[in-house]
Structure formats: C-alpha cells, structure tokens
C-alpha cells in the first residue's frame, strides 16, 4: 500500500484505522485454492537417487543369483552314480579348503591303479592352485577317469568332493572323501539304487558315514524320501519397532516466516511389528520370503505454539475475557486444526497485541500399518547356525490413524487455558500407500529338522509414495529387532 499524505482528517483517520489491520479467511480456503492449482512437480533428484540405490541393489542381487543358478545348473545332472569312497591309506592330512565356492577347478588324468601317492596328487593340486591350499589334499586311487575337485558342491567343507567324468561330461560318478581321524578305512561303494530320487546333486542330503574298522557302511541320517529338502516354510515374527516419521509441511499458522525449520518435522514412534511369513526355498542358500505384517506405532509429541495475542481469532464469539486461537497440528493423515481457548487471568489488565501467548500441548498419534514384503534371503552358512542377509521391498498401507490431544497448558501467568478446545479436520489426506525398501541381517538356528528360529535386525525406508499428491509429504525409516519361528514343509 502506497502511503499517501492525508489531505484531511478523514483520510488520516481511515489510513490509521486500517494500518496493520488483519483478518483471517475461512480455514478451508487453502483447500479450495489448492484444488485449482496445477499438480505439483515431484522432487525428481530425490526420486532418482532412491531409484539409483534400488537399481544398484537389484543389479547386485541379480548378479549373485545368476552365479548361484549357473553353477547349480552345471552340477545339476550329476545324479546317476554316487560313490562314497574312503581312502585305504591312513591319512593324517588336515584339509583346509579355503572357500566353499571356488569356481576354479583342477583336472588331471589318473590312470588305473596308478597308485599315485597322496602327496604326489597333493603336490599337483598345490602346483595348480598354490595359493588356494595351505595343507595337503587327499585324493584316493580312482578309475581311469578325469576328475575334478569340486569345491563348489554344497556339502560340508570338511569333505573333499571329486567328480569323475568322461570327455568333460559329468555323468559318471562322484567321490566324496570324508575327512576323518579314523584309521584304516576301506572304500565305501554306495549303489545308485540305494539312493535313487536324489535329484540334483546340489541338493544331496546330509549323510553320515559310519566308519567301522571292518565293515564300513553308508547310513543316511533320515530316509531320503523324507529328507527331501524343504521347499516351503511358514513362520511368525514379532518385533519391537522404532520409526522415524519425517513430515514435510509448511509451518502451522501463525508461525512467523523465520521459523523455516518447521517445514520439516520428525516424529519418533515406537510400537510392535507382528507378521506372518511365507518362504519359498530356491536352493540351499537362496529363498524368497513374503507375507503380511501389521504394525502399531505410537507417537507422543509436545507442541509449543508460538502465538501472539494479536493472532486470536476474530470471527468467533468467546465470552468476555476469553480468546480463541487456532493452531494446526501436523499429523500423518492430514492437518488437524485446533481451536484453543484461553482466559485472561486478570480481566482488567490490557494485553499488548505482540504479547506472547505461550501454550503447551501434547499430542498422541497412533498409526496402524499393514505391509506386504517381498524379500530375497541369502544364507551365508549351511550348518545348524546360519547367518543370513535379506533385502527387497514392501508395500505399506496406513490402515488407520488416531489422534488425541491432552495436557493443554498456558505457560503465561496472564492467561489460563480452558479445556473446551475444538477439532477441525479440514484436510482429508488420502490414505498413505508407499513402497519401501527393506534390508536385514540375522541369525537362524535349526532347533529341529523342520523347525527354525530366527533373530534379525531390519531397516526399512520409504522409497516411493504412491498416494495421490498432498500438502503433507511423509517419509518413514524404521528399525526393528525381530524374533521369528518358522516351520518348513
């Protein structure tokens, strides 16, 4: 407004009267304006960044999966003959296979009854891959076959696996040499008839070689039909969860413009995660996990509105000596307009328009989420105790959200709060639907052949918000320490 030098008393009177005068329109006017504005453009760099990470993780998983399946396929048809052989010779060699997955193999021609000594073969092995072996490797006498030391067979690393083959085709036999401290063991031949239906050698069940001085025999721990590797699993999980809820919004009215930090607010929530998991075993190490989970989270927050006396509402009709103020609370499901009423402690005192009206109020929010994860799980070990890694995505839906307000207090001696606040919910945010990425690490323990317990640490963070655009933009990051029980089928 340009300042005109008043020509007369009326002009001066009008100018003075309107100087600094303000009035507020209806609360929902912004919603009407927003409806007519073009759709907001998303913050693209952030999305690219997140998609970049997701693509990188997916690519790495893809490469590892490809490698895993590729090698499994190479060994897949070795299912015709399995011969478990123990050396005739007494051995004191200690096997120290350095890595369960060694892609490099050793091949050599072994003539019938050549009776190569263990040391001779071991030396050859050492020459071929000198850095891989620190100790002697035990290779027994073999038939006139080429053989390969197959360290990438999914067997115990205490075993030496020898694959025999003709002309490069692995269709003859497999020799498994068990590390043993027993003396004078005889070779053990296991007829393929005894162990039919084994399927791929990669899924060779655990077998225990019972060694006796005179008559060694092969005795599977569990009948092969029963001991078929479990494909499916179902489990329950429960976890305490901590969530950091980031809400981006303009500051609530009538915060002054300098409080730009209120554009973003972080709310901490605590709660419980309960889930049912379904697993599908892709192979010994890899599995796909899905299911459904429910999360209940609670958040308590103390608000301290920075109100000035002049901000009191003009268009309400409070009793004399009372004033109404408006304060907007940011919630995950929208803005909650709160009308607060305060009484003047001393009705005769004059309140300056710039007088601070310090109020304090607590809000309690409860969030109910449903989520459906899709995770890839990789087991680092194959024993009873295993360390596992998991990663993937989850769809998350805010099923319900409750809001309570309590303990409204005036921190000023000149004003007293009154418990007759009103709520207004002008902003109906569409239900939040989001895609998160999930990563985790944990430990599993086989308590029985079919039962397993797990304990793991998971981190989840928002990747993409699928909900229609709204003035509130939320992002969640959560941590949970889960305890699970799984039954395999």
């Amino acid at each position, binding site marked *: 407004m340009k300042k005109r030098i008043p020509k007369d008393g009326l002009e001066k009177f009008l100018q003075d009267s309107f100087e600094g005068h303000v009035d*507020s329109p209806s609360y929902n006017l912004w919603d009407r304006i927003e409806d007519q504005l073009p759709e907001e453009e998303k913050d693209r760099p952030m999305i690219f960044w997140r998609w970049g990470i997701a693509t990188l993780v997916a690519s790495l998983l893809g490469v590892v999966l490809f490698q895993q399946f590729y090698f499994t396929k190479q060994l897949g048809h070795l299912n015709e003959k399995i011969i478990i052989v123990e050396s005739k010779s007494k051995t004191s060699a200690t096997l120290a296979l350095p890595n369960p997955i060694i892609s490099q193999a050793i091949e050599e021609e072994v003539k019938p009854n050549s009776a190569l000594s263990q040391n001779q073969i071991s030396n050859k092995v050492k020459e071929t891959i000198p850095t891989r072996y620190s100790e002697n490797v035990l290779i027994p006498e073999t038939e006139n076959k080429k053989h390969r030391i197959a360290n990438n067979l999914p067997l115990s690393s205490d075993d030496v696996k020898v694959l025999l083959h003709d002309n490069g085709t692995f269709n003859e036999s497999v020799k498994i040499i068990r590390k043993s401290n027993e003396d004078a063991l005889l070779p053990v031949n296991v007829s393929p008839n005894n162990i039919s239906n084994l399927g791929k050698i990669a899924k060779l069940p655990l077998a225990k070689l019972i060694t006796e001085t005179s008559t060694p025999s092969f005795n599977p721990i569990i009948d092969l039909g029963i001991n078929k590797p479990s494909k499916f699993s179902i489990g329950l999980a429960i976890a305490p969860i901590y969530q950091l809820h980031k809400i981006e919004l303009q500051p609530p009215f009538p915060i002054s413009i300098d409080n730009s930090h209120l554009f973003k607010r972080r709310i901490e929530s605590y709660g419980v995660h309960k889930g049912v998991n379904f697993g599908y075993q892709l192979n010994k190490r890899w599995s796909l996990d899905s299911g459904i989970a429910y999360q209940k989270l609670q958040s308590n927050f103390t608000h301290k509105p920075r109100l000035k006396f002049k901000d009191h509402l003009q268009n309400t009709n409070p009793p004399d000596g009372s004033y109404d103020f408006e304060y907007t609370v940011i919630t995950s499901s929208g803005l909650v307009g709160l009308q607060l009423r305060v009484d003047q402690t001393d009705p005769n005192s004059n309140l300056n328009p710039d007088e601070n009206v310090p109020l304090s109020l607590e809000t309690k929010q409860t969030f109910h989420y449903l989520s459906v994860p899709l995770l890839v799980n990789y087991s680092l070990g194959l024993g009873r105790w295993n360390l596992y890694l998991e990663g993937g995505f989850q769809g998350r839906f805010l099923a319900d959200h409750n809001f309570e307000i309590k303990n409204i207090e005036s921190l000023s001696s000149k004003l007293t709060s009154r418990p007759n606040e009103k709520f207004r919910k002008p902003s109906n945010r569409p239900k939040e639907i989001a895609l998160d990425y999930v990563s985790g690490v944990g430990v599993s323990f086989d308590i029985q052949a079919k039962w397993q317990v797990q304990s793991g640490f998971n981190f989840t963070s928002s990747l993409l918000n699928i909900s229609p655009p709204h003035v509130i933009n939320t992002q969640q990051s959560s941590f949970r320490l889960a305890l699970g029980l799984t039954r395999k089928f």
Partner: protein
Amino acid sequence: MNKALQKIVSQCKQGNRLAQRRLYEVTRDKLFVLCLRYTNNRADAEDVLQEGFITVFNCLHQYRGEGSFEGWMRKVVLRVALAYVRKQKRTFREVPLNESHQEIELDLYQESNAGQLIRMMRKLAPGYRTILNLYVLEGYSHEEIATALDISIGTSKSQLNRAKAKMRMLLEKKLSSQK
C-alpha cells in the same frame, strides 16, 4: 525481500506446493482485509482472495524481483478485486448523499475500528467505495483510478468527494448514536 521469503518465492516458481501454502499463510491476512474492503461480504471477499492467489501462483514468473514482492502480490489481488467490482455491474453513477445504499450483509463482524469501518464502507455505493479505497488507502492518483476503472478523471474526483462526504455523514451518525 528477506531471504526466507526469497526462498519461498523461488520454490513457488517451481510449483512447490509446500512453499505455495507457506506463502499463502504468511500473506493471506493482510490481503484478506484488502478483499473485504472491495466486496459486499466475507464470502465474496474469500472468492476474490482465492482467485487472487491462483493468479499470483500462475503469474509468478512475471515477477522479476524488482520492488517489493508483497507490493506486487497486493497489486495482483487488487486487480482481481477491481475485476470483481466491474463484474457486479455497478455503475459509477452519482448517488445523492441522503440515499443510503442497502446494506447487503448483516454479519457480525468483529467490532474493531477497522471492522466497523468496513461495515460502514459497505453502505457506500460500490463506485464510491472503490474510489475511496483506491485513492485513500491504496494511494492511487486520479489518473490511475480513471485508467483502472475506465472512467474520466473528473468522475473520479467528484465521486471521491461524494464518498468522503458520505463517510463523514456515516461517522457522525455513528458517533451521535454512541453519545
């Protein structure tokens, strides 16, 4: 323009909804008073303010950073308010001083000085009220008013004088009723 406002304006230009809402919140109250002065009731004032903000957001790229941003916004909203006045098809005719314009709204406006004055100004014919507002409160010259309202300078001057006379009469009446 302070840095915070500069940042908000820059974000608004990129279509950032949060920034738009922020700008709305920090400027709406002053602009609403402006709208109240040119309209017959609060509902119409809100309509004008709504259209004003939409125009501001759509034309924000036209603001080059020269001069006060709040002044620029005010001009935009004022243009919308004047368009509203024209749309009401009120002619800027001469009205006898003793002819009281029918009070359109009887809402219980907050009885502050400014609130009372707004009520009082609504009793003026729209042409009087508009010219009084533009001249006294917006600081427009008669030439500018004539251009903005498509009337002659003489009409602007005579209507201002009549508007003032009417306002004086209303104020005196108010004062005498309080005695």
